[in-house]
Structure formats: structure tokens, C-alpha cells
């Protein structure tokens, strides 16, 4: 399979790899939470703890969240949604996966030798002068991985522009396609800035050329500007595809077109554009001028607007929809709540006065985990549950999938809500020891993490089980609308037996929507 450049195969390659790296990142999270059970730093040395949270961040962000929805779901579903046989550049697509694996190899090499202790943010001068660890290897791994993302972005942009089926105009496209397009724009335009920043970091570390070293006329804050110029748009790479997935699931399980289709479509583009303008909100306490801080704060308020537009439109879609509480729908409803909390706390962080108080505390940690785990990761799981029948041709247990959704939701909130309180009370991030009065909240958080871990392990079991014993799914087990549901499950080699033509709007249910067979509910017995 590693030489086959069909996007279906490449999607599976990515599925396997991201699952492995997610597990490694999750292992680090487990160790972090175990250390934080007690106020004293008794499980790990401080330096080791630094490496734990650094590698957790690096693994999760670069090797799981950024590729997950685009490379796993996008590679499989995007060509199907467009009525195309494959992406525009299949060999480049395979090269993307190879680059991803090469990048992962460098990072794993660093990991095996003890990892990096700088935090995933690599701030200078720690990363260029004082850090004694495998910073260069990790930076190289991220550099190579970045090009994997860039090539995927190039591929998707060209595919969406040039390979739509006849009749599939831009405003008939599923909203997942719009979200993928916006994501790809960010990947192509933002990632190169990270690439050059890592090059400069490497040169400074290796040759002692002081780009970010004040002793040689350099400026460490310049590193932060360059780094965040990429890393803020990067968080939109992580969430935008998930927002597209949510639109698909809500449309499917309310049996309605998404309310305000054009607004939702354009909101993805708006997030991509505005996302480039707000990087300074990560630097409010770095010595940024008050005027710059005010501008970035105002722009941060603006970037929340398109996200809010999506939430309001989803709510309007739910209103008077014919709602079916399938497992993906469970995840979707959970997602909306968690995304709103994450987003609102983001606005809080974007407010200058509040940020001075909570910057570098667990408030920030909770905020981004609400979006990245409660939002992006849940949507990825949701996407897997929604399209699993299409990808594998099998159905999974309804009972166990509902249960795991509940475990994930409860476990997630138990893990991360106490962290908002911890941060507000002053618990700094990246600390492995803390005052005893914080222990109760930390214990709750660790307990929640155990439940969450269980919620992630259970799907692994029933998904694998379904491959052998699951009922056959048929073309359209959910009765949803979209080109991907008009081909077989799994799709044939060129995605469609006969290339489709499109003559209807997005999500337009023909009367009546007919599910080919009973959805998964019939297969809930036996386990």
C-alpha cells in the first residue's frame, strides 16, 4: 500500500500513523497528569517534566492535530465530495505522507534520546543557546513535516478548483470542502514562515550566528513574532476542517440544509484571512508596545465573529430539524458547547486586562484544550464515526459508540474545566510542583483524564471489531445527501463507477430521503 498513490490508500496510511502519534502524545499527557496528582514534584525531575510537556505538545500539534482531519478524512472524502477520481497530484500526495513519516522519524529520534525541554514554542534564547537537548533534530522533524502539510494544501487547493464534477459549482459544494479550502490556504501561506524560522534557529544553534541573540545584535522577540505568525494561523489549520465536519454532520442528522450556507462558507475564508492578523495576542506580555497590543486585541475580537457565525447557523439548522441522535450527532452537540466555551475563553484571553492576569497559567492551557480536544479532536472522532461506513463498508456498535461519546464528553470536561479555575487562581503552566491548595482541582483533572483515555480506547476496539464482524453498510446508511453517499462503501478504485453530474443544491434532500438499510442500531447486540 505504501507505493499506491490513490488518495484512499494514503488516507488509511495517515489514519494508522496519526493514531500511533496520538498514542505517544497521549502517553506523555498521562505522565504529566500523574506527576500533577501531588503538589510536590516527586515523580520526575524538573528537567524531565519540561521534556514531557514539550514532546506532548510537539507530537499532538504537528503529528496529530494538523494532519488529522485534512489528511485522513480529506484524502478519502474530499475527492468523493467533488465527484473526482483522486486528488490533483496523487504522487505528491504520497510524497506528503513520506515527508510526514520522515519528519516523525527525526522527532522520534530526538524523543528516544530524551527529547526537547524548551516547550513546543521553542522560544529563544533557551532553544538556541542554553537547551542541551535534541532541539535541532526536533526542529528538523517539524520542518520536514511542515512541507508535508504544504504539499497537501497545494493538492487540495488545485483539486477543489479544477476537479469538481460537472454541475458542481462553488456554492453547491459541501461545507467541508469550503473548510478544507480555507485550511489549505493557511497551510500553504503560513507554514513556510515556520520553515524559515526553524532554519534560522538551526543556523543559530549550529553556527552561532546570532539572529535571535542580543549579544550579537539579534532580537529574541523577533523569533516570537516569526513563530507566532505561523503558529496562530496553525491553530486555525487545526480547527477549520473540524468546523467543516460539524456542518456535514448537522446537515445529515437534522435532515436539513445548513442554515445560511453562504455565510458559513465565507466564514471559513474569513477565519483564514483574519487568522493571519492576530498573532500578537500571544505576546501581550513580551514587551509589545501598548498600541500594538490594542490593535491585536481588537483584531482578536474580530476573528471570533466568523466562528460565532458558524455556531449561530448550526443552531438555526437544528431548530425544527428532524434530529436523529446518532453517535456522530452526540459528538456534534457536545462539540458546539465545548467550542463555545473554548471560543469565549479565547476572547477573555484576548482582553488585555484579563490576559495580564492569566497569561502562562492553566487558564490558557484549558482554553486551547477546549478548542483542540473538545473541538478539533472530537470532530475528528465524529468524522471517523460518520464516514467509517463509507471508508470501510462496515457498521459499528451503536451502544458502544454512544457510550464512548459519553465517556469522552464527561472525561473531557472533568479533565479541563478544573484547569480554568486553576489558572484563574494562579496555577502557572509548565510547572510540575504547586501549592497544596490546588491539589483537589488537579486530582479532579487527572481523574477526568483517565475517563477520557477510556473514551479513546473504546472506539479503537469497536472500530477494529467492525472491520471483521460489523454489518455491511451499504451506500448510504445515514440517509445523508452528498456525492460521497452515492457511491459504494467502500468506493471502487476510481471512486465512482460512473462519474456523477450534479444538478441540485448542497444538502438538498430529495423527497423522501431513503436510507438503503437500517443504520447501525441493529448491530448493537453481541458485545
Amino acid at each position, binding site marked *: 500500500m505504501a507505493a499506491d498513490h490513490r488518495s484512499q490508500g494514503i488516507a488509511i496510511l495517515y489514519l494508522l500513523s496519526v493514531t500511533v502519534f496520538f498514542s505517544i502524545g497521549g502517553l506523555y499527557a498521562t505522565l504529566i497528569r500523574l506527576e500533577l496528582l501531588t503538589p510536590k514534584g516527586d515523580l520526575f525531575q524538573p528537567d524531565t517534566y519540561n521534556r514531557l510537556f514539550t514532546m506532548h505538545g510537539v507530537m499532538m500539534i504537528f503529528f496529530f492535530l494538523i494532519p488529522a482531519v485534512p489528511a485522513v478524512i480529506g484524502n478519502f472524502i474530499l475527492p468523493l465530495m467533488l465527484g473526482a477520481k483522486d486528488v490533483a497530484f496523487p504522487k505528491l500526495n504520497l510524497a506528503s505522507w513520506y515527508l510526514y513519516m520522515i519528519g516523525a522519524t527525526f522527532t522520534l529520534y530526538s524523543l528516544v534520546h530524551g527529547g526537547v525541554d524548551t516547550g513546543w514554542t521553542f522560544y529563544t534564547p533557551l532553544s538556541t543557546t542554553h537547551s542541551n537537548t535534541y532541539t535541532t533534530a526536533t526542529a528538523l522533524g517539524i520542518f520536514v513535516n511542515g512541507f508535508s502539510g504544504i504539499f497537501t494544501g497545494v493538492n487540495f487547493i*488545485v483539486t477543489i478548483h479544477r476537479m469538481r464534477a460537472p454541475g458542481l459549482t462553488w456554492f453547491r459544494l459541501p461545507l467541508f470542502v469550503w473548510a478544507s479550502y480555507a485550511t489549505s490556504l493557511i497551510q*500553504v501561506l503560513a507554514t*513556510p514562515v515556520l520553515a524559515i*524560522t526553524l*532554519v534560522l534557529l538551526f*543556523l543559530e544553534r549550529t*553556527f552561532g550566528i546570532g539572529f535571535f541573540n542580543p549579544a550579537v545584535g*539579534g532580537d529574541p522577540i523577533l523569533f516570537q513574532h*516569526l513563530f507566532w505568525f505561523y503558529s496562530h494561523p496553525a491553530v486555525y489549520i487545526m480547527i477549520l476542517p473540524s468546523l467543516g465536519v460539524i456542518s456535514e454532520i448537522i446537515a445529515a442528522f437534522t435532515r436539513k440544509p445548513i442554515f445560511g450556507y453562504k455565510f458559513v462558507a465565507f466564514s471559513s475564508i474569513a477565519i483564514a484571512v483574519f487568522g493571519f492578523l492576530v498573532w500578537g495576542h500571544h505576546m501581550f506580555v513580551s514587551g509589545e508596545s501598548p498600541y500594538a497590543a490594542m490593535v491585536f486585541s481588537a483584531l482578536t475580537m474580530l476573528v471570533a465573529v466568523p466562528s460565532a457565525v458558524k455556531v449561530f447557523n448550526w443552531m438555526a439548522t437544528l431548530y425544527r430539524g428532524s434530529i436523529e441522535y446518532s453517535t456522530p450527532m452526540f459528538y456534534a452537540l457536545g462539540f458546539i458547547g465545548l467550542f463555545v466555551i473554548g471560543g469565549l475563553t479565547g476572547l477573555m484571553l484576548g482582553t488585555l486586562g484579563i490576559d495580564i492576569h492569566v497569561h502562562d497559567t492553566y487558564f490558557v492551557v484549558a482554553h486551547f484544550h477546549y478548542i483542540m480536544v473538545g473541538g478539533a479532536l472530537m470532530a475528528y472522532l465524529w468524522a471517523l464515526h460518520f464516514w467509517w461506513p463509507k471508508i470501510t463498508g462496515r457498521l459499528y456498535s451503536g451502544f458502544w459508540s454512544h457510550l464512548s461519546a459519553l465517556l469522552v464528553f464527561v472525561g473531557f470536561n472533568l479533565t479541563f474545566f478544573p484547569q480554568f479555575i486553576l489558572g484563574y487562581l494562579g496555577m502557572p503552566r509548565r510547572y510540575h510542583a504547586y501549592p497544596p491548595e490546588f491539589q483537589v482541582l488537579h486530582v479532579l483533572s487527572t481523574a477526568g483524564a483517565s475517563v477520557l483515555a477510556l473514551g479513546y480506547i473504546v472506539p479503537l476496539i469497536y472500530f477494529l471489531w467492525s472491520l471483521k464482524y460489523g454489518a455491511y453498510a451499504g451506500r448510504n446508511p445515514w440517509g445523508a445527501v452528498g456525492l460521497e453517499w452515492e457511491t459504494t462503501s467502500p468506493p471502487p478504485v*476510481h471512486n465512482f463507477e460512473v462519474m456523477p453530474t450534479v444538478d441540485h443544491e448542497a444538502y438538498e434532500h430529495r423527497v423522501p430521503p431513503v436510507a438503503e438499510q437500517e443504520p447501525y442500531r441493529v448491530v448493537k447486540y453481541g458485545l
Partner: protein
Amino acid sequence: MSEAASAHHRTDLAHHFESYEQQKQSSLLGMWVFLAQEIMFFAGLFVCYVVYRHMHPAAFAFGSQHLDWRLGALNTGVLILSSFTMVVAVVGAQTGRRKMIVCGLILTLLFGAVFLGVKVVEYGAKWQHHLVPGPHFEWHGDPAAGRAVQMFFAMYFVMTGMHALHMVVGMGIMLVMIPLAWGGRWTRENHNFVEGFGLYWHFVDLVWIFLFPFLYLLGLAGSGVHG
């Protein structure tokens, strides 16, 4: 179109495309999007340069004066000529003239080699004058100014070095293209690779068009730094 010709052309069309037109438009759009990415890559370096020039204007002017603007201008002319010969190759591909493609590519390659040769001369001169950043750098004067001048040369080497790296990659690709073109690989109907590569080469030329004034010309008015 004869049967034999159409059989040949069928192998030219990738299986996931519906038509040659779709394949061509996709290839070119892909190259444009890739170049947008390259612009952002170099943009990071230009931002660094602008920031440090703003912080150390005198030192940067001094450093700029120590570059030979005549060699820089020569290189600029050489690259512009190489873009012209690249266009010749592309037109050859568009009109199905095999020899024109080959001639255009060979000349472009030669001009590229001239450019790199001049760069080697320049880099060598910097080394001799102890202006290469790192342990070999020497500065006899105010230490603060010395640090800033070292920063200028750091930016000079990284920016021109990154540009040269892109040129070397391009030249390597041309080395492969020349025998392929001679063998008749590209036709009037399908020559996307040549057009796409032409875009890449013009981009490399364009980066130099920005590098030259930024690095070589901005300091020519005079400087207050002595070393």
C-alpha cells in the same frame, strides 16, 4: 490526429484527469500555489532583514558598501538573461520545437552557472576579508558596531545562500530536462512540466531582483561606521 499519435497522447494523460486541458490547468495552478508558498518562505527572511536594518542602519549601510555592487549588477543582468532564455525554451515547448527547448535550457543552465561562479568569487572575497559570521569573523573597532555588521553579513549569507540553493535545485532539474527534451518528451499538446519549471525559474530570478537592491544598493549613499 492519427491513430498512432492519439495512442501516444493517451499515455500522456494521467488517469485521474478527464482531459488534457484539466491536466494542464491543474499543473500550472499547482505551480502558482507552490510559488505563493515560496514567497512566504523568503518573506520571513526579508522581514528579519528589514527589522535589523531598522535597528542598525549605519552598520547595515557599511556592510552593504563592502559588497561589490558591480558584481551584483552583473549577476542581475545574467539572471534576467537566463529568464529570457527560459522563455525561449518554453516557447519551443509550446510550438513543438524540440531543439529550441534544448537550446533554451542549455543557455539558461549556462547563465545560472555564471551566476553561481560570481557568487563563489564574492563569497571567497568575504572569507578573505574575515567578514563571514562565526568564529572567522574579525572586527577592529567598536564591538557593538561589529556585532551589527556581523548581523548584516549573516543576513547576506543566509538570504543569498537560500536563493543560491533554489538556483542549484533548478539547475539540477534542468540537467535532467535537457536529455528528456532532446528525446522528444514534450509536445505541443503536453508540455506542462516545461511551463511550470519556467514559472519556477522566473520566481528565482524575481527573488534576486529584490535581493540585489536590498543588499547591495541601500548602503551606497555613505556610512558613518569605520572598521
